């Protein structure tokens, strides 16, 4: 075995250790994100019911929902960064397995999160301007996309378990 081969194996071993550490952190952050996203969806649904679904309209859930979604967005970003920064020591052929399902679901969740940030920002700005036109429809879309994103996140987490 040549010096180059030994060096390559050593590098691959180092990269594997680094990958394992980053993906373990990714898993922990992912579980935290899932829990915060579940809470955001539940409180968000209560907020929607309160403001648009015949509730008191007092807005008691507005601030808790806002704090939860900021935390969820932060955790989601950190989770994604740890996954993207995990090195790949070996080339892996593309095939349909739980890893691919996890990635596809994570891409769906990322698209959902971006859509939620945009929709949430527009809905909040419109309401803060006192403009009630189309607000309920925007909130409905925001609500539906939120639960869909949570669905993708659940699939991504479940795929990792098996």
């Amino acid at each position, binding site marked *: 075995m040549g010096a180059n081969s030994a060096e390559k194996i050593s590098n691959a071993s180092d990269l594997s250790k680094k990958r394992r550490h980053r993906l373990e952190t990714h898993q922990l952050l992912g579980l935290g994100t899932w829990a915060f996203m579940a809470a955001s969806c539940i409180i968000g649904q209560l907020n929607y019911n309160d*403001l648009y679904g015949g509730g008191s309209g007092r807005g*008691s859930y507005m601030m808790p929902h806002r704090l939860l979604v900021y935390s969820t967005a932060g955790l989601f970003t950190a989770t994604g960064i740890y996954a993207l920064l995990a090195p790949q020591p070996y080339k892996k052929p593309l095939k349909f397995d739980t890893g691919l399902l996890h990635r596809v679901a994570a891409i769906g969740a990322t698209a959902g999160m971006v859509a939620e940030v945009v929709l949430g920002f527009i809905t909040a*700005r*419109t*309401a803060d*301007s*006192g403009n009630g*036109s189309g607000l309920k429809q925007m909130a409905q879309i925001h609500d539906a996309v939120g639960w869909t994103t949570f669905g993708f996140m659940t699939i991504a987490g479940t795929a990792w378990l098996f």
Partner: protein
Amino acid sequence: MLKRDKPTQRYAGCFVAMALAMTACSFGKPDIATVPAHPTFEIDVKPLLADHCLLCHGYPATRGAPTSFRLDVYTSPDSLPAAYQEASRFIRSIQNGKMPPSAAWGDGVGPNGKAMLQNWASDGYPD
């Protein structure tokens, strides 16, 4: 250090452009077209309040707005202070850009709306 390749820079650029476009967009109701010289509450002020204030300061108050006054009526049938009693206070909040909350982002009452409220105040807040 994170090596930034071209696609990463492109995504970051798109994200920044999207964020800037979103903050530059207007989400409030447009300004009134002309400034009436002698506005009244029912004809001029109430529609302006409906566009910018009553989503929260209607009756009952919603979205965490105070319940101690109402702006949907000139004088209240109950004991609560209404638009007439609160006029100087809500006009000051609008003129200062404190209300509506999105005024800080440029989604407040427009210059014509503010001038109309000033005329209404000069005339003694007529019904």
